[in-house]
């Protein structure tokens, strides 16, 4: 063998030999079960809650009409079909309750039961942690926030947002 081919063999040998030593790692403890989920209560959306503070002594009027007082939601109303009316979701029998499409009463603190009566797929996703914000720990207790944390129930689509700055034109170099 020539000197150079000896050298090649040497280089190969010394290079490859370093590849065979497996790594020893100490693992951290395995994660605990991750199924604990807490649903966070939402604070009242309007200052005059509960509704009964005004409505207790009034006769509810189920007829759709133009509302003139401060019932008009501050962002307007854009949810579902145009002929939507308060009592589609607010309970006629108990003004401090909501109602599902089937008329089942729902507490204000559990809006997902109401929303889910139309948006069943979203409710299923939300329960599975696939819809909505995930807070807490991926392997520990999780905090799940209900629909009205993010969505205005009267106008549930997200408002457009101001984006953060774009990357510089010449790549990310400044």
């Amino acid at each position, binding site marked *: 063998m020539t000197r150079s081919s000896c050298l090649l063999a040497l280089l190969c040998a010394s290079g490859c030999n*370093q*590849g*065979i*030593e*497996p*790594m020893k*790692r*100490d*693992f*951290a*403890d*395995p*994660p605990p*079960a*991750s*199924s604990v989920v807490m649903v966070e209560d939402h604070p009242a959306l309007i200052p005059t809650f509960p509704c009964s503070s005004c409505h207790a002594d009034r006769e509810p009027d189920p007829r759709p009409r133009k509302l003139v007082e401060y019932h008009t939601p501050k962002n307007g109303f854009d949810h579902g079909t145009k002929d939507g009316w308060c009592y589609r979701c607010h309970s006629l029998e108990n003004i401090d309750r909501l109602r599902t499409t089937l008329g089942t009463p729902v507490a204000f603190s559990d809006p997902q039961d109401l929303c889910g009566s139309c948006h069943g797929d979203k409710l299923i*996703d939300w329960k*599975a*942690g*696939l*819809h*909505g*914000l*995930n*807070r*807490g*720990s*991926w*392997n*520990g207790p999780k905090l799940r926030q209900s629909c009205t944390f*993010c969505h205005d129930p009267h106008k549930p689509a*997200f408002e*457009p*947002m*101001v*984006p*953060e*700055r*774009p*990357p*510089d*034109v010449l790549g*990310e*170099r*400044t």
Partner: protein
Amino acid sequence: MTPEARLGELVRLRLGRHDTRRGFLKTALAGAAVASASTACDGAGVEKLLSKHYLKLTDEDKRKLFARIEAEVLARSGVRVTVGDPQPMAGVEFVHALDLSLCNGNRRCVEACARENNLPDDIRYLRVVEVDAGTLELANAEHAYDPELVPRSGKNYLPVQCQQCKKPPCVDACPVKATWVEPDGIVVVDYDWCIGCRYCQAACPYYARRFNFREPSIEPSRINPDQAYLSNRIRPAGVVEKCTYCLHRTRRGRYPACLEACPTGARKFGNINDENSEVRRMLERKRTYVLKEELGTVPRFFYFFG
């Protein structure tokens, strides 16, 4: 077929297709061998002369090394940081999922990531690209979109970051094994071993790796003191870095910073081996999209349509 069997099949198809057993954690690291080396003297201290590959560091080495790094940051910027070294958890393989029907291109994730990971202004791990509705073709993507408000009508948004591939081309490319796949699936870089050849950048099909063309400068008030050796510690100049799924957070049970920053809740994260994790359920229930799946990189990052 029972749902459980179907799910098992799904997971095996998506993530386990290159292995018959779940032995990939081992194979990913089987080649991660190392030897100590002395680098050329740059006159900055005796310890630096004897820099070692991360996988060769003993606990004692780590203690000294991390203390040295902490002292250096303190001397340079007056910020007291802790450099930790959280280890992968047994049986955990991280997967990130992103709901493309929710992303509206607001880039909160980009900036939260930068804060969390101590990125200088000229480096961002995340790119959100704007594509025309009806396509996900990157060739026509807009990177520097900057309208008053997002989303723009007729546009969709596709955030791209390190896909933490199971078959990462970047790891194969590195001539000195300065980057490797951790047992929990995170591709990390040893910033003290990288020689700065940037072959990994050329090899990455996702534009996920960034090079420190200059000494990174971060305002002291913006330095995140919660640091880890393999993730968000302040990098030296001349080395490559990348997204590490915030391993200093996620290995301690927290969610990555980008996920918590997302106002639309588009991001999901968890352990794919855990049947109750969000990502496992995502894989079970949703139609998914894998970026450049045809390249065979087997990403641990899924896009789905919620």
